[in-house]
């Protein structure tokens, strides 16, 4: 290789160098470190680490009930978000996709909650759901339904659903934006041609909209699952996992193992377990999505 070619390659590598260094230090090393730590019992400080093999994973899978409770809680919120939140998002997207007065206003307003932080949303709703000074109870008393009033986020029966409501309030606008983008990509002529041929609203929806939107539906559902399963900010700013374990979610359990009981190795094994479950969901999703785009 000539000297000029070497110099040329060197300057080319300078372009990617900063990104590669940052990525190696802050993504690659931690990625492998998680696997390494997961087979040790380690408090995070002492130089001494006990090798326990797959013991951490065995404990997590067979003995840690609070871990599986946290998975079930997150799954419950996810199920609600998948159905209610995405249904609402779709209905709104279909309405706004048509000509409607105030289209732009609605588009701006619906996407307002998603740009706020989970902390802000949690703190405001915490007060709405508050038992003694909360706005919801105040409204219920005003409507003569005072016997329904309760400390919504401190009551084991309602806490998890309260969290789900907050999460869906923050999240539906995001699904709305993506679904709307998908709907607007459908050529208008398709709908018009069908209408001229005498198709009703329902036929157009089921024979044109749904098949063409399938890939977008899959996309929104996978992102809803991944996002909701990893819910954290809203929990930490409202219930912090309580009452009892009623609103614990995987991320709060991982943090509890790490910061709370100083079991770094165990926390890593929980993280890997959780990551594998999410990966499995993503893979199923990718297959479905491929299948659906072949279908259209």
């Amino acid at each position: 290789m000539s000297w000029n070619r070497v110099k040329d390659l060197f300057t080319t590598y300078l372009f990617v160098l900063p990104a590669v260094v940052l990525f190696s230090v802050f993504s690659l090393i931690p990625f492998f470190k998680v696997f390494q730590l997961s087979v040790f019992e380690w408090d995070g400080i002492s130089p001494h680490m006990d090798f326990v093999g797959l013991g951490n994973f065995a404990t997590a899978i067979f003995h840690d009930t609070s871990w599986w409770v946290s998975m079930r809680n997150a799954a419950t919120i996810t199920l609600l978000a998948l159905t209610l939140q995405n249904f609402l998002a779709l209905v709104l997207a279909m309405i706004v996709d048509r000509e409607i007065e105030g289209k732009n206003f609605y588009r701006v307003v619906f996407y307002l909650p998603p740009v706020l932080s989970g902390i802000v949303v949690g703190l405001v709703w915490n007060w709405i759901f508050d038992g003694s000074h909360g706005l919801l109870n105040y409204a219920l008393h005003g409507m003569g339904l005072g016997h329904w009033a309760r400390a919504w986020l401190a009551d084991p029966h309602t806490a998890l659903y309260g969290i789900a409501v907050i999460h869906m309030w923050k999240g539906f606008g995001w699904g709305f934006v993506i679904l709307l983008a998908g709907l607007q990509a459908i050529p208008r002529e398709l709908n018009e041609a069908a209408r001229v041929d005498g198709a009703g609203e329902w036929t157009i929806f089921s024979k044109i909209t749904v098949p063409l939107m399938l890939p977008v539906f899959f996309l929104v559902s996978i992102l809803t699952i991944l996002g909701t399963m990893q819910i954290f900010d809203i929990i930490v700013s409202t219930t912090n996992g309580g009452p009892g374990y009623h609103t614990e979610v995987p991320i709060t359990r991982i943090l509890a193992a790490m910061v709370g009981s100083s079991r770094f190795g165990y926390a890593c094994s929980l993280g890997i377990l959780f990551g594998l479950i999410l990966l499995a969901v993503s893979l199923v999703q990718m297959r479905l999505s491929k299948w659906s785009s072949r279908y259209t």
Partner: protein
Amino acid sequence: MDALLTPARPSEKFQLQIWIYKIEHWLRHGVAQVICFTVAVACLFPLVWMVASSLKTQSTVFSDMSLWVRHAHWENYYQAWTRGHFGQYFFNSLLYTTVVVFGVIITASMAAYAFSRLRFPGRNFLFILLISTMMIPIPGSFIALYVLLVKLDLVNTRLGYILPQVNGGLALGIFLLKTFFDKLPQDLEDAARIDGCNKFQVYRHVAMPLAKPAVAVLAVFNALAVWNEYLLAMLVLSDRSLMPLQRGLMVFQGSHITEYPLLMAGIAISIIPILTLYFVMQRYIVAGITAGALKM
């Protein structure tokens, strides 16, 4: 003659059909408006109420539920800014957001330009590696990241909070910008090369000015993410003088749990910049969300 010139009256049956059509149309629009309007109110109400509460006093905030405050206590904002340390948090958030956004734009655009335009061994491998974090969820990686930051002596430093976030923005940034550069015509760059520009000058003075729309999307997207970040701030920063707003809000809530007007003022302070950004850069945000979601 007269009878021939006046248009024939539609038959009664046809008139009825017109009426049915009109009523149906009106009903459909009415229902659509009611749905959209209700949801819009549900989106805005908590925010309006939060601002109203931030202007009340400690003694009136729980009894006076009005949304229009007659005697606004603007001094709450001064109190939150000084006594509640929100001035400090605000400055920190502004600093972190600015530095991370610039860091992401510089490192990601340089790498993306190389991946799109320059030829070098290992190009495809490095590209796939750098954007792999978009596909693989690793929810436990923050544990190892924390351990690493302790080793590098970066815990509780500004740099320790900034660098991982620059890295966090790389994958989407490189992906978005490479796609954008790929679509740019190469003639201008070739002309610049012939005129004697070196690779870096072509990148800096030809490619980057053309990439402004993609850079804007990236900037807005990262600004939102950094401004709203909480988990890393909680793990890495323990000095109040280093904390960003989200962390500061949680600290304030923990120590002044009942001072709702000040807490609401703090929240209002924390969302003013993000709302401004949202309204000014609205179309870039929506473009970013769709691009970010459709990356998969």
